[in-house]
């Protein structure tokens, strides 16, 4: 064994391209142990971590983008709502103005009607009063006239028919002269 190794070593010394058998064995062994531990056990772990890191970074960027999009969306919504509210307010104002004008017109109309009605009522009242006064006046004047006439002529004008006729005639005359005087 010893001799063989020395022989091999001597031979190897002459030709460095001939590998040592035991070095091959150790080489294979150490290579495959490292390959198993590093390549099989450890590299997948770091790959997983790197993937997670990428995920985390991309996730962060994605989240930020989402938040930004949401903020922009909200802003847009608020703007729309604000514009809507402004429009609504303008509409309401316009409506109120129209309503006010309408109410004003209506009130004016009503007031005018009322005034007309009052005037008419007053006219009617005046007419009625006049009529009443006129009727009263007529009887009053009749009585006064007969009294006066009776007293003047000294004769009793008791007779109903005559009395009435005289009065009527007197009044007709009076009315006629009245109308002429009015004209």
């Amino acid at each position, binding site marked *: 064994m010893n001799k063989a190794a020395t022989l091999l070593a001597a031979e190897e010394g002459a030709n460095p391209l001939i590998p040592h058998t035991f070095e091959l064995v150790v*080489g294979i062994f150490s290579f495959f142990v490292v390959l198993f531990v*590093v390549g099989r056990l450890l590299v997948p772990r770091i790959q997983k971590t790197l993937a997670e890191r990428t995920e985390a970074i991309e996730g962060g960027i994605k989240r930020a983008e989402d938040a930004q999009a949401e903020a922009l969306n909200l802003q847009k919504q608020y703007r729309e709502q604000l514009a809507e509210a402004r429009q609504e307010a303008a509409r309401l104002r316009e409506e109120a103005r129209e309503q006010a004008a309408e109410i004003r017109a209506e009130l004016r109309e009503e007031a005018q009607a009322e005034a007309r009605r009052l005037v008419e009522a007053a006219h009617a009242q005046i007419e009625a009063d006049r009529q009443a006064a006129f009727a009263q006046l007529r009887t009053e004047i009749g009585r006064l006239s007969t009294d006066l006439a009776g007293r003047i002529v000294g004769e009793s004008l008791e007779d109903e028919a005559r009395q009435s006729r005289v009065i009527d005639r007197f009044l007709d005359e009076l009315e006629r002269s009245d109308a002429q005087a009015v004209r």
Partner: protein
Amino acid sequence: MSALTVLADDQFKAPSPDELFTFAPIIPGVDWFTKPVLLAILSSIVVIGFCWAAFANPKIVPRGVQNVAEYGYMFVRDQVARPFLGKDADRWMGLLLTLFFMVFLWNIMGVIPLLQFPVASHIAFPAVLAISIYVLKVYLGVKHQGAIGYFKNMMFPPGLPKPIYVLLSPIEFLSNMIIAPFTHAVRLFANMFAGHMLLAFFSMVGFWFLFEKLTPLGAPVGVIGVIMTIIFTGFEIFIQFLQAFLFAMLASMYIGGALHAEH
């Protein structure tokens, strides 16, 4: 070299590959347990320990060692896996990250003080990886393109005039099935081998002319040796990184080529 030998009065001897790359067993009697074997095992432990510290309990917000390891992961994913594997990249990251870290550790052992031996300069270690990738490549090719389809796609890329195939097909077969795995391993091995030779040579020059045989004539040569050692150590670190990157990249390319026909 002859000038050096003259200066050293035939006493300076450049280190030979035999001296640099042959090791006695660390524990007498246990023949298999030599320095390269120890360093290979140590590399595996370091890679596992580092990745365990970083990735066993990964945080969404990375801290400390996870940051460093993630930097490595991102580098392998973006520079090695994705250009050749596209959307399949994540599925093969385990293998490619293991390859990159292991080869890098094997290589960097060459400049770590006291250890100072690149594990990959013993052909057995790169060969193990290259053969594993080769087996995987052929398996994936046959699985995804069918046995006939795989070789047809490899040897008869469409759209060429017929006579070309007489020349092209054997070349393609040879380069893909025989030369590729060989160069895959040898490129790494040879770089580390040569790099180690260079570093050993320059540090030996420095040590010899400044400590072993300090002479007025030899001292400047020793200083040059020390400076060159420093420069080449920096250069070597770059090469060690580059070769690890290249090894993983070629593995990625082979897997990508096996998954999808290139034409």
